[in-house]
């Protein structure tokens, strides 16, 4: 199938972002409307992507391929499968919401703000649709620059510390991946992912390459113990930055595991699955406990993100243990779809929670939990949304948060009772920290004059949270369209991860 839809989706936001930059901060309202138009156009362009997608096939679709650097045999090679599609849709949706959410809130250099998010959107879509490893890496690293500026320019008090930490952490992780990619390229003579999938590698090579990938993806996810950049980055980032970080950028790590680690180094992934599973369970339990004691709302949600992403990494790697326990890779697909649903759901839920915090922050300019209390009395509509998203975060059945966690726990049971037991701790811990947050912030008597003076959601905020609420509920009640799209691709991944390359 020939189409240039993916190029359109990648370059439209980038060029649109440049156009917004050219409009400049002096004509802020023009810049805003232009940014919204570009974001909506990208969202609209992603609809035919979904409609035209053949869910019964695991093959790359909407493929575009032309020579890029002929001497390296690296191509401008785009294509999506069932893993990329949901993430691209999530990206286009989130960007529209972020643009709307920042509409009047951003007073400092608004044109640059919107431009940064649009350029970011294009680069993220590029990451999800690149089928050439070098092209992937270029998008992957280029993404850091707009995010670095977003946190650094529009962030909070400690923004410079946070953004430099963010950049260096992720940069450090990625350079190892680059060395691994070049190493494999020298063996294949080709940067296409398909060639890397076919490349036979010895176990030592695989282990080293796996660790190099792990350095890149574990930082992005982030996994314990390289997670410390995330709370800083989230707390200091502006609301929109937090939303994009939580909703999309963290997913890049999970996406990387599915796209690179499992298919390229299956034997090393098998040999080292204990490491990933162990760290994932630590994230679920230990980071859950840390979240419990946070005083800062954004920090609490950031830690909750790390715990939730633990499910993603657990789902990605538990397949090997399932195979060891049951003798077949039957449960692995279940685990992977759990991981994928969890990624999408977490993107919606954590994005929504950050937006909720943003709503409060815009009014009282503090994220301290102690500064709130009884918000529901003055902001009933907001309270309802916040409770809904909190429930989804805690994994209440009927919300999207439940589906992913349930699938992963179910799959873990097939592997080992204790994996499932520890993973299921999140049902208690997640409920504890989220509900306690809600209790302290939303419920109770009006705590102070600040809260008493709060005004409920305006139309813009209602629209943004409303869209997310619908998505969270829809995915919770009827996740089938999502799982159907992913199913053949995930089965293909399981097939790749189960065949030894030795």
């Amino acid at each position, binding site marked *: 199938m020939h189409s240039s839809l993916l190029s359109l989706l990648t370059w439209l936001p980038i060029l649109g972002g440049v156009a917004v930059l050219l409009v400049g901060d002096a004509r802020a309202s023009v810049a805003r409307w232009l940014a919204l138009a570009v974001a909506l156009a990208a969202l609209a362009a992603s609809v035919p992507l979904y409609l035209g997608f053949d869910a019964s096939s695991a093959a790359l679709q909407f493929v575009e391929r032309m020579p*890029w*650097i002929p001497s390296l045999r690296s191509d401008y090679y785009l294509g999506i499968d069932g893993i990329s599609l949901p993430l691209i849709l999530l990206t286009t949706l989130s960007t529209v919401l972020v643009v709307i959410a920042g509409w009047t809130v951003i007073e400092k250099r608004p044109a*640059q703000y919107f431009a940064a998010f649009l350029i970011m959107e294009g680069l993220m879509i590029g990451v999800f649709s690149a089928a050439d490893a*070098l092209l992937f890496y270029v998008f992957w690293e280029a993404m850091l620059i707009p995010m670095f500026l977003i946190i650094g*320019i529009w962030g909070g008090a400690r923004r410079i510390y946070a953004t430099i930490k963010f950049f260096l952490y992720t940069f450090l992780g990625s350079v190892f991946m680059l060395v691994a990619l*070049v*190493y494999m390229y*020298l063996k294949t003579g080709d940067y296409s992912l398909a060639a890397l999938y076919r490349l036979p590698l010895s176990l030592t090579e695989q282990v080293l390459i796996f660790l190099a990938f792990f350095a890149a993806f574990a930082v992005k996810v982030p996994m314990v113990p390289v997670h410390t950049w995330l709370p800083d980055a989230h707390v200091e980032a502006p609301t929109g930055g937090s939303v994009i970080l939580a909703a999309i950028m963290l997913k890049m790590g999970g996406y990387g595991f599915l796209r690179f680690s499992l298919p390229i180094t299956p034997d090393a992934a098998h040999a080292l699955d204990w490491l990933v599973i162990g760290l994932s369970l630590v994230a679920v339990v230990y980071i859950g406990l840390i979240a419990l004691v946070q005083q800062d709302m954004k920090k609490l949600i950031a830690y909750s993100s790390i715990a939730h992403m633990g499910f993603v990494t657990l789902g990605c790697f538990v397949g090997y243990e399932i195979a060891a326990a049951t003798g077949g890779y039957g449960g692995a697909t279940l685990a992977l779809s759990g991981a994928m649903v969890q990624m999408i759901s977490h993107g919606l839920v954590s994005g929504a929670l950050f937006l909720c915090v943003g709503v409060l922050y815009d009014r009282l300019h503090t994220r301290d939990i102690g500064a709130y209390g009884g918000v529901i009395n003055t902001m009933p509509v907001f309270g309802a949304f916040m409770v809904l998203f909190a429930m989804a975060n805690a994994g209440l059945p009927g919300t999207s948060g439940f589906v992913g966690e349930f699938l992963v726990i179910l799959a873990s049971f097939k592997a080992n009772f204790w994996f499932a037991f520890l993973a299921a701790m999140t049902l208690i811990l997640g409920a504890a920290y989220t509900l306690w947050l809600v209790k302290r912030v939303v419920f109770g008597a009006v705590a102070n004059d600040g809260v008493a003076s709060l005004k409920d959601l305006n139309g813009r905020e209602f629209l943004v949270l409303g869209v997310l609420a619908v998505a969270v509920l829809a995915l919770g009640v009827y996740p089938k369209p999502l799982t159907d799209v992913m199913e053949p691709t995930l089965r293909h991944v399981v097939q790749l991860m189960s065949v030894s390359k030795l």
Partner: protein
Amino acid sequence: MNPMSAVDFALAQPEMVLLGGASLMLLVDLFLTDRQRQITYFLGLLTLALTAVQVAALPEVHYAAFGGMFVVDGVARLLKLVSCATVAVVFVYSRDYLIQRGLFRGEYFVLALFATLGIFVMASAGSLLTMYMGIELLALSQYALVAFDRDSPVAAESAMKYFVLGAIASGTLLYGISIIYGVTGTFDLGALAVRLDAGAATQVGLLFGLAFLLAGIAFKFGAVPFHMWIPDVYHGAPTSVTLFLGAAPKLAYFALALRVLAEGLGGLVPAWQEMLVVLAVLSLAIGNVVAVAQTNLKRMLAYSTISNVGFILLGILAGTPTGYRAALFYTITYVVMALGSFAMIVLLSRKGFEADQIEDFRGLGQRHPWFACVMLFLMVSTAGVPPFVGFFSKLYVIQAVLDVGLTWLAVVAVLFSVIGAFYYLRVVKVMFFDAPGEEVAVTAGPALKFLLSLNGLAVLALGLFNGALVDVIAKALP
């Protein structure tokens, strides 16, 4: 063999045009008043343009002239073309700066052209003696250029340091050459390669000479531990001179390393590879780590040069055609980035004020968003972040190093580039995250602004479409 024929002179035509132009400028400049000095400037640009036309007309295949002393081939042609362009850009960047400081004198342009002639001779050297002549011509012009602001004590001090250390390095180099000559009985690089074919790597005499040669080369490049002069000279020289020092000569030093090590002493690859590994790793380490501590942008860029030299050496030490091509790609793209970075200092400087502190860039993102963006491109590119060209130059070098099985070296290189990213990011931080200080108008002329904008965009375009440059290099250096 007739040592001098008409063909020989035809092949040396660009050099003769350059020499003629520079001499003519020297004469013309005598009779100009200060207000007519523009004529020298335009004559300089014209000479470079004419030279470039002559170079472009040269054949791309290998020719040896003057009994093998002088070689014309693809790589010489490419290096000469790039250095013509570089020096022309340096002239345009420097003009306003020199005028504002009362330094707009003919010597600057004439000396720069003589230095360019030195670069040309080095690029075409077919024998160790020709190479040495080129080196000295380039070096002497540079010493004079550094001292050329004669009222500045800092510049004089830098020139003195540069001269003394440079003289020692030249001596070392010459000593190495004489030992190599003593062992092999030839200065000719082609003949040297032939005589070194069998069992050369075990000859102590050769290795002894090689060590001195390498020390000289490392000094010229500014590789650790022969780097001491770089920060002081870059810092002390007028920025317009630093602009020159930081850019064009790197091309000549690449030619030096390529001609002497790869072509002449290719049989000794294992020997010089080991030595270069040490130099490269030390340069990466010291350059990147010490740059973090700098507050002066010129010094920071000087240390950044040292670390970039480490990368160039990594490409060369691979000892393969891929490696040399990677090093050449790195050198050319580094020159583009260095030109832009130093030109940013020139852009923000004005009469009586040097914008050479990192702090001077505070809030540039608000004051002059476009030039802040150009600087962002330059810094992020030098840090090696895609899609800018700096990433690809590092990629090619890493690829060359991995290709010869030196995986650990590639890992070391990328680790130090992460450290390096910190200080480039600090410049970005100062520009975009800090509140602007006093309002400063940019007094630079339109030519500088236009060329600098192009320079910034070139860093992006060369990155996105680096295949074109790769092809050019592959043709020049098969």
